[in-house]
């Protein structure tokens, strides 16, 4: 008797005598969740299915390919300069997100740990840029860069990286503000300057946020369409742009099976990254500014 009373209440819902209504409600909830999950997955599953079908199969209604056409993937990487696009995408994404993460960490440290006249006003500027529509600055930047011959080079990505990102600045400001004063005080008493404090104490303590910031800005750069399509010429562009313009026959008709396979290859790294860092995406850094 007493043992039953003391039974752990973990998952208390399940131990309660179930009313028929509750069971029906629970089943209904699962059915609903599974249906919604399927709706969310269908676009990707359909893409995967098309990427393995033969051209002739496209017009026949079937969920699954008859035989798996792996050759579509060979077409995907040979019909367009796939390797070159990937190299450029990876290079630009690493340059931009590496610089952006570091620059945002510096700025975030400044806002969290240092005092100066004008700091509050500058922080309002960071808030304001968070609200600023990107495209309003991207097009005039393009016009200016076209005049100073920075278009069709990779320099814009270096500059965007150095400028950091408002969102990451928040993330780092949050992180650095929550670290207790003791360490910093001790270092200052030992004669450490702020740059050493930042580099030796704060940055190593923020490893998780550094990784998160890099992953977030890498996926953003990998997925970016409008800046490479404006700032790069179509021969030396990123996979995002190359993919959307490629895979046509000489006559100009699209080769959908290769396009689907190319898209699968393009999405795959992001999906793998997401699955690996899934907990971080969902419970951590995406919403860390809100909690």
């Amino acid at each position, binding site marked *: 008797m007493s043992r039953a009373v003391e039974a752990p209440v973990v998952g208390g819902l399940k131990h309660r005598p179930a009313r028929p209504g509750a069971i029906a409600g629970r089943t209904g909830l699962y059915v609903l969740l599974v249906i919604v999950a399927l709706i969310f997955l269908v676009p990707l599953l359909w893409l995967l299915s098309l990427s393995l079908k033969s051209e002739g199969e496209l017009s026949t209604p079937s969920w699954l390919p008859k035989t798996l056409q792996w050759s579509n993937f060979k077409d995907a990487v040979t019909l367009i300069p796939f390797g070159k696009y990937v190299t450029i995408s990876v290079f630009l994404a690493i340059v931009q997100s590496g610089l952006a993460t570091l620059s945002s960490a510096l700025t975030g440290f400044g806002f969290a740990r240092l005092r100066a006249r004008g700091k509050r006003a500058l922080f309002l500027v960071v808030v304001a840029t968070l609200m600023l529509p990107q495209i309003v600055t991207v097009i005039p930047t393009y016009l200016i860069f076209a005049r100073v011959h920075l278009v069709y080079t990779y320099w814009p990505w270096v500059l965007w990286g150095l400028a950091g990102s408002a969102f990451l600045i928040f993330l780092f400001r949050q992180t650095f503000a929550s670290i207790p004063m003791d360490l910093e005080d001790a270092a200052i008493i030992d004669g450490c300057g702020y740059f050493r404090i930042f580099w030796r104490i704060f940055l190593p303590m923020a490893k998780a946020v550094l990784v998160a910031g890099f992953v977030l800005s890498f996926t953003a750069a990998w997925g970016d369409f409008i800046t490479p399509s404006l700032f790069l010429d179509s021969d030396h562009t990123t996979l995002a742009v190359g993919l*959307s313009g490629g895979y046509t026959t000489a006559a100009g008709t699209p080769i959908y099976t290769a396009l689907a396979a190319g898209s699968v290859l393009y999405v795959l790294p992001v999906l793998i990254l997401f699955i690996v860092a899934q907990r971080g995406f969902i419970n951590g850094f995406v919403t860390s500014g809100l909690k």
Partner: protein
Amino acid sequence: MTTAEAPAAIRLPADVQTTAPRGWKRYRARTFYAFVSPWLAGFILLTLFPLGYALWLSFTNFDGMTGHYRYVGLQNYADIFRDPDALHSLGRTALYTVITVPAAIIIGTALAVLVNRPVRGRAAFRAIFYLPAVVPIVASALCFKMLFDSDFGLLNHIFNQLHLQTIQWLADPLVFWVMIAMTLWGVGGTMIISLAGLQGIPGELIEAAKVDGANAWRAFTRISLPLLSPIILFEVITGVIASIQAFIPALLLSIQSGTVAATSVPQSNYLFMIHAYAQYFDYGRFGYASALLWALFILILVLTAVIFKVSGRAVFYESGPDEAAQAAAGHATGGKAER
């Protein structure tokens, strides 16, 4: 003002700071500016300067080619109201915003409520619902084109098997709804933000309401929703900003045999930024296009201000409006971080 009224114990840190050596304070201020200088330089060069340049262009008739252009005052802004395409595009953008923003918030919050319940496989459901939000826009557009293609799209296959007439989804007027479906596919971003808000609500509050006899719906509308309102305000503002400037989905859905062109976007997807983009890159009317860009910018500023104003009464702040406003801006530590 507040420091004057504050008890001595709270004023103490300020006293300590005034006694800090001057040299140290100056070093600290210099270090602050050194640390933020890459960002500050980037802000001036890549945000402020382009904005100013576009503003200047918007007062001229620059066509991008000839060096001979002149100041035309507010002519370009006046032209917007006489340009039927601009007004049409504004209408499409308004419709797109009015549909996608509330729909994303309702669906996103509903999903958040579902995956906030103690169900088996909760982490997997969260991941699946959020997944499309990380799919790059180019791939999302390709997915939806292949889903709704008139020949081999899944939808028309299903219609075929039901012996229904197949439909041209990617043409006027239905392509507008394909674009909306594509936008709402990425609703996971909103879900995650609502979920973070829901997780911040103390469970005791909901329990107490249930003890008092409230059913789940009543507990949600009377307790969770008011506590969630600052988060919803944040979602409304970011949603409105995102959808007013949206144009890439429309552009990508209209790609024909590999060419991206604003001019090939169907009428029903002709959003305001598509019009601006076309004016820049298809017609070379840089002055007028810059006026469109600035009109968009001003519209967003005005709408954000109006939303803040209107929401004043509807939004419930647990810990004072200041802190919640900062939370809406993306961080919630408020005074804690200020040292």
